[in-house]
């Protein structure tokens, strides 16, 4: 017997994970415990996301994996291959063509549609963990909506750095109720958490699943006099010229030369194919050869 179960996990396990997902969707932002399985990859590689993807994929799906915005990192490639092999699903690098997108550290620049699912890999699901190590206590704080501590963290940020220095995993309040860690996406991505697609979050080592249903209110926490700002590098992409995308800064030579480029590689490529050229870019056809 050499066949895998569809998408690796056995049917019982997928049912268990789907129940956790449905519960998560019913209680937006609430962390639902689930019995995380051993996966054939180390924890840091997104085993939580992989299990969620395995539970939602169907044979008709088209699957995309992004790691820090790129489709071609070792991590992204191996997860994509894993599902090609175990589920036989079609894969793509194009955001618009994918029906299920597993991601680490980014939300695609392209707005997602109602027929798309975004699956996040989550290292630490508990936003209160930083200040309250007790799991019993944090669970109680969520249950009783005692979230003052979250602002203590932001207070500490401002008192130490003069501003809210938290740039990743910026805490949000979902539908006016649960405070949630959006996983280590840049805070630039936070406004996109209000979207048409379904968002599912899986933490493998911590055995938690949570979710944001389509069109759910997601508010980034802040102070009246230090409002939340979804900042990015004050540049345009040097390859495609985009002004509105999140940028990575790259050192390009020993002389300290640097360039900014879209962290979302599909977004950048799509723009370049459409003829957009940035300050240091060349037209798409030439370097594609």
């Amino acid at each position, binding site marked *: 017997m050499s066949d895998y179960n569809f998408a690796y996990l056995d049917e019982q396990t997928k049912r268990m994970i789907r129940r956790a997902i449905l519960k998560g969707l019913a209680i937006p932002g609430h962390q639902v415990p689930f019995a995380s399985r051993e996966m054939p990859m180390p924890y840091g590689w997104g085993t939580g996301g992989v299990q969620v993807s395995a539970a939602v994929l169907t044979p008709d799906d088209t699957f995309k994996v992004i790691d820090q915005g790129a489709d071609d990192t070792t991590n992204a490639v191996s997860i994509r291959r894993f599902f090609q092999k175990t589920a036989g699903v079609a894969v793509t690098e194009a955001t618009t063509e994918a029906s299920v997108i597993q991601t680490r550290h980014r939300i695609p620049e392209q707005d997602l549609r109602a027929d798309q699912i975004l699956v996040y890999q989550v290292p630490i699901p508990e936003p209160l963990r930083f*200040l309250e190590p007790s799991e019993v206590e944090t669970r109680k704080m969520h249950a*009783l909506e*005692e979230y*003052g*501590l979250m*602002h*203590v963290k932001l*207070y*500490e940020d*401002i*008192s*130490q750095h003069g501003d809210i220095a938290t740039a990743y995993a910026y805490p949000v309040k979902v539908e006016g109720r649960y405070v949630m860690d959006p996983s280590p996406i840049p805070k630039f991505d936070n406004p996109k958490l209000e979207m048409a697609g379904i968002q599912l979050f899986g933490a493998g080592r911590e055995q938690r699943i949570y979710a944001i249903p389509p069109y759910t209110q997601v508010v980034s926490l802040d*102070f*009246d*006099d*230090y409002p939340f700002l979804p900042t990015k590098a004050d540049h345009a992409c040097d390859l495609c010229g985009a002004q509105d995308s999140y940028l990575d800064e790259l050192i390009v030579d020993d002389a300290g030369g640097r360039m900014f480029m879209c962290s979302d590689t599909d977004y950048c490529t799509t723009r370049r194919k459409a003829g957009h050229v940035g300050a240091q870019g060349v037209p798409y056809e030439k370097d594609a050869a």
Partner: protein
Amino acid sequence: MTPLLQVESIAKFYGTRIGCSDVSFDLYPGEVMGIVGESGSGKSTLLNCLAGHLTPDRGAVRFDTRADGLRDTITMSEPERRMLGRTDWAFVHQHARDGLRMNVSAGGNVGERLMAVNARHYGDIRAAAIDWLGRVEIAEDRIDDRPTAFSGGMQQRLQIARNLVTGPRLVFMDEPTGGLDVSVQARLLDLLRGLVREMNLSAIIVTHDLAVVRLLADRLMVMKDGHVIETGLTDQVLDDPQHTYTQLLVSSVLQV
């Protein structure tokens, strides 16, 4: 006048061992009640029952809530009780590390209770923290230091500031000067006396140190083996003790 706190027949056992038993008293607004007794006499057990940290086996603890008047805090829901714990009540622990967040700055420690009741203006929170650090004689330039960098006396003063910043209506204190050097104790005591008068605080202070209650408490309860054996006005109990045990306690024959 409605009592602020009405304690009725409180009993708490640890298995068959008695923690405290049959304790009743009323505390009126602006009053400071001292609870004294030797180690193991049940003072902390009683205080924790009153403050909602322990569930007593018998009795009622009624608090004059803002919304509904006297309510039994033992039978009210946990969310309600925890809400009291971070608004109208304050609890000063003997060990400052039990009452502080050691990995959060002094300002953050003082600001936490404000943020817990939805203060959302950083400038205001910081101003209140600076004001309160001043009131407990901690220099403003220590506001961003963590309590781990503070002396024992400073930590205790910070804990007091953190508790009083929201203007609680009832303060519980368990050996607030315990474990500190004598000279540090004197300063803290002086500070506490000033705050009690200035804010017209209602408080219940547990201590084995008679000097503390002499200075702070209007009334006194003497405990022994989990029972209250003598109560009265502080001066009356200390200057004219009736019970033999209290007489020993006051004459310092007992090593407490």
